[in-house]
């Protein structure tokens, strides 16, 4: 079985978010980049399939050379091959189209992406890939079992969860639950050494078009100071929530 894990290269969760070039570009100054948390869960589940059921695991990113350290980290965690589609990621559609092409070329049976990236928050790439390659699709996936070409998955829904059955080829939008956080792997020295020798193939883009264009970014307006209420005067809190904030 051939698994492809989509890796989005995103600012670490503690990053301060700033913009440059007339607020049109994310300011990467001083920002540390990591594997998108949802993708990390997917990658670890892919490693489980590799070790327990026999599979090859490739990782893919659509982005410039600056994303290679993140792909190397995925190799150090245990992926076999990395592919970088050499183009700036501009919107979800373009990324999905480029990855769909990689999937077709590589003949992958299972594509694991994240439910959502923490930078663009599109929640769109995995579903688009699935539709482009005519594969089945389950998102918000918190459990995945494979038996031959049959799959059983659990999807988080509003207010609960749902168990579904489906089959390969399959695309997953994964999240925490796919594996537990305590099972996430931190690359060790041996993994890092081995990753240096593993193939990281740079492929040229097919030149997919975009459907949306970022005009500019804005930061939320600075917050006013908090109104403190004494713990001995909670009537005042109820009053403020009712009359001032009008939320109760």
């Amino acid at each position, binding site marked *: 079985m051939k698994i492809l894990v989509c890796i989005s290269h995103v600012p670490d*969760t503690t990053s301060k*978010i700033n913009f440059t070039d007339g607020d049109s570009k994310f300011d990467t100054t001083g920002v540390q980049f990591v594997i998108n948390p949802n993708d990390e869960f997917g990658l670890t589940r892919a490693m489980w399939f590799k070790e327990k059921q026999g599979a090859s695991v490739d990782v893919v990113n659509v982005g410039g050379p600056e994303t290679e350290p993140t792909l190397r980290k995925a190799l150090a965690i245990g992926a076999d091959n990395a592919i970088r589609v050499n183009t700036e990621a501009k*919107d979800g*559609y373009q990324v*999905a189209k480029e990855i769909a092409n990689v999937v077709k070329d590589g003949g992958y049976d299972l594509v694991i992406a994240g439910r959502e990236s*923490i*930078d663009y*928050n599109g*929640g*769109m*790439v995995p*579903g*688009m890939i*699935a*539709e*482009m390659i005519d594969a*089945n*699709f*389950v*998102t*918000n996936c*918190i459990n995945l079992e494979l038996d031959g070409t049959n799959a*059983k998955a659990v999807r*988080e*829904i*509003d*207010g*609960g*969860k*749902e*168990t*579904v*059955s*489906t*089959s390969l080829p399959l695309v997953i939008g994964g999240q*925490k*639950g796919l594996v537990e956080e305590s099972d996430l792997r931190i690359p060790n020295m041996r993994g890092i050494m081995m990753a240096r020798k593993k193939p990281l193939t740079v492929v040229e883009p097919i030149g997919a078009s*975009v*459907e*949306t*264009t*970022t*005009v500019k*970014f*804005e*930061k*939320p307006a600075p*917050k006013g100071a*908090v*109104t*403190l209420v004494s*713990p001995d005067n*909670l*009537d005042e*809190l*109820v009053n*403020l*929530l009712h009359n001032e904030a009008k*939320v*109760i």
Partner: protein
Amino acid sequence: MSVLVYTESENGTFKKTAFEVASYAKAVATQMGTTVTAFAVNANDVSELGKYGVDKVLKISDDSLKNFNAKSYASAIAQATKNEDAKVVIVSQSADSKYLAPILSVGLEAGYASNVMEAPTSTSPFTVKRTAFTNKAFNLTTIDTDIKIVGVSNNSFGLVEANGSATAEDFSPSLPAKGVTVESVDRVTDKVTIADAEIVVSAGRGMKGPENWGMIEELAEVLGAATACSKPVSDLGWRPHSEHVGQTGKPVASNLYIAIGISGAIQHLAGINASKVKVVINTDPEAPFFKAADYGVVGDAFEVVPQLIEKLKAFKASNA
């Protein structure tokens, strides 16, 4: 030409978000000088949609669609879009709508903007404001395709009554093979979900242990709120994972978010910042949450929360 809106229902009854996306669709239709057509699956009474500006409802009644299926629903909505010659399709950001939107986007060759906060700032070029960087920023984006799909964040636009009436029409699309079959659904039905809630009561490690959640549940009940928790609380197994909110958990965009014994780490705040009014109850005046909150009580949750419950009960009794 019209604006098409997918109005979700559960067991035949429209969800509140259905009225919110209908209100949003009406605003877009007004900007574009056109009408609103709603798409509804197995809904009992569609006349309610008129109140929020819907002119016409395409009604599907089909037992095979009882369980949500992203592929079938996306295909049916695509057929409705073509039938109506709709140029804009509006969906909510429920788990189901987020599931179907990217599929629909490819099917219709329509650009999709998710997490949209406001009515379009312009309809030509079609420009919307969406959240990005997990609520740490906004992204003003144009959708450049002929047909546009807008995913409206829950609780961002609100309900706007329009006093109209809607005509209903039966609609029978041809449905593709499902590909994904629902085996079982495990849904808590007697509790407000975080996605739908107008008020969320959330608690953190300051609660010391799972045995102390009774007062959190009670406060939520008095307010008709959903309960949520910080990440360590779900990691420790004090509360189910489904309650974990924040950057790596569920996003919260409620009208009121009450944080009890939560420090306000950047990853927590990122996921809940879209909430309109934030209240923090914490013993530590230096807790970062006080910088993000609108109202704060520096105090011990074990004293403040039971008192607050009593005050709110009294408030409810006098306002009933």
